């Protein structure tokens, strides 16, 4: 045994640190950002091509007289003309802002209500049993169904719009948080408990951050629901005093049988919905997932 000891001692000491540094270097994966060219070819080019194709088909339908009725299908040029007109009159940004400000403010209130509600449902067994199923059920109720009662309760005003947004978005946000909390690995809870994170400390330091990916997914869906509910409310409850948002613009186009205006409104609703998602929610989601190493690169 004596000989074993001396040789072992020779191999120990500074040798171990070097060995370990080598192992660390070998096993650490190097990751870097993709070059712009690759991003362009993989991410930007395909949707641009798809849009170009749709425009080409649309133009062809009009040019070759396949649909020969501008009250049914206006040409892309005509829709562009209406857009340009609204821009030059200084009305375009006004339409967008009326709807976006309503949507975001409503979403913000939905966030303030949905978050504590979701936490309560996720953590308190009685509350979950009592309202959990109703909350998930509400998600499948089209929010347009809330417009008639909201008009009767609150009248034709902005409050009614916010009420419809809340009823649409709160269940999504709360449910996102609930499923986020449910998917927290039990190992994290055990690890947290051995570190002394119990009760409220555990909720704050372990449960909430661990549930963040599910929560953000809920926010994303909550925004989609907010925007849809708002458009439904604006179309059904259009009233001159409320200011013209995108939903009213669509309804005005219908009343005037102006198909170019209807297309303009639909395009704007779609564009704004996508833009808010691309500018706010998708980056937020990517950041959360990437910082945890959960974003799998194609």
């Amino acid at each position, binding site marked *: 045994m004596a000989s074993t000891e001396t040789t072992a001692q020779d191999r120990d000491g500074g040798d*171990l640190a070097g060995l370990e540094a080598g192992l660390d270097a070998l*096993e650490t994966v190097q990751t870097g950002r993709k070059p712009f060219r690759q991003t362009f070819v993989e991410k930007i080019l395909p949707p641009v091509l798809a849009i170009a194709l749709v425009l080409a088909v649309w133009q062809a339908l009009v040019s070759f007289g396949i649909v020969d009725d501008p009250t049914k299908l206006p040409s892309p040029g005509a829709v562009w003309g209406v857009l340009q007109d609204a821009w030059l009159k200084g009305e375009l940004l006004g339409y967008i802002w009326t709807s976006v400000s309503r949507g975001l403010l409503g979403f913000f209130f939905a966030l303030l209500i949905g978050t504590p509600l979701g936490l309560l449902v996720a953590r308190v067994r009685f509350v979950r049993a009592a309202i959990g199923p109703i909350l998930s059920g509400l998600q499948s109720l089209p929010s347009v169904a809330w417009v008639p009662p909201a008009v009767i309760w609150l009248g034709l005003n902005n409050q009614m719009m916010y009420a419809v947004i809340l009823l649409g978005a709160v269940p999504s946000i709360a449910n996102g948080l609930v499923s986020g909390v449910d998917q927290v690995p039990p190992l994290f809870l055990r690890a947290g408990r051995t*570190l*002394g*994170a119990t009760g409220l400390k555990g909720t704050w*330091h372990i449960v909430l951050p661990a549930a963040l990916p599910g929560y953000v997914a809920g926010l994303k869906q909550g925004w989609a629901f907010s925007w849809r509910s708002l458009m439904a409310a604006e179309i059904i409850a259009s009233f001159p005093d409320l200011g013209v948002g995108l939903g009213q613009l669509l309804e005005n186009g219908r009343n005037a049988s102006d198909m170019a205006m209807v297309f303009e409104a639909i395009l704007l609703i779609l564009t704004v919905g996508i833009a808010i998602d691309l500018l706010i929610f998708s980056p937020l989601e990517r950041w959360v997932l990437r910082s945890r*190493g959960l974003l799998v690169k194609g």
Partner: protein
Amino acid sequence: MATTLAKAADGTEAATHAARIEHVSKSFAGPAGQQLVLDDITLDVAPGEFVTLLGASGCGKSTLLNLVAGLDRPTSGAISTDGRPALMFQEHALFPWLTAGKNIELALKLRGVAKDERRGRAEELLGLVRLKGAHGKRVHELSGGMRQRVALARAIAQESKLLLMDEPFAALDAITRDVLHDELTRIWRETQLSVLFVTHNVREAVRLAQRVVLLSSRPGRIAREWTVDIPHPRRIEDTAVAELSVEITEELRGEIRRHGQH
């Protein structure tokens, strides 16, 4: 060795043991009624002692560790520890929303360490596991071995007298595991922690421990104990380690064979 000294000085003061497990039994409600998992376990871990619990599947070694960690209560018997023990799992259990350094700082924060001291202390602990400069690294950017070292640093950050380890190196490759055995031995000797280390790997048990406790399976009972007085540093391929491992393996196989006979 420290083991025998502590055993001789068996008294009632808290300082004479890091953990004391007295006649502990644990049963769970199973499909066939109450199922006894641990049967009358009595075991002391002396301050600064390194004990490995060795056993095949179903010996309840993880259950015992959970009981000592206070994550579960024994059905009968008593467990006392010198303060709240730290616990390391087979999975690193680092929080992926925090950097390596912040994981350690969270442990310090939950222990009540002042904000301006945490960063420096975390750096020190990272230095202890030879990961200086990894403070800002995300968990997914670290290799398996590095993650377990951060987890070890986080466990040490709790400044517990007792470190419980639940097969912490079982998921690592052989080379990394061997290196971490050396690291753990070095850190154990530097910090004078008491360690209760659960494993099913006989060589690992012999290479690390001062005392190896063999548990029988279904229900878990203490079958036999060995005092390991092979001097450190030990190597996994040392003849002394190998010889004792063979002896313990024979015993373990005997325990397992008994289950095939009825």
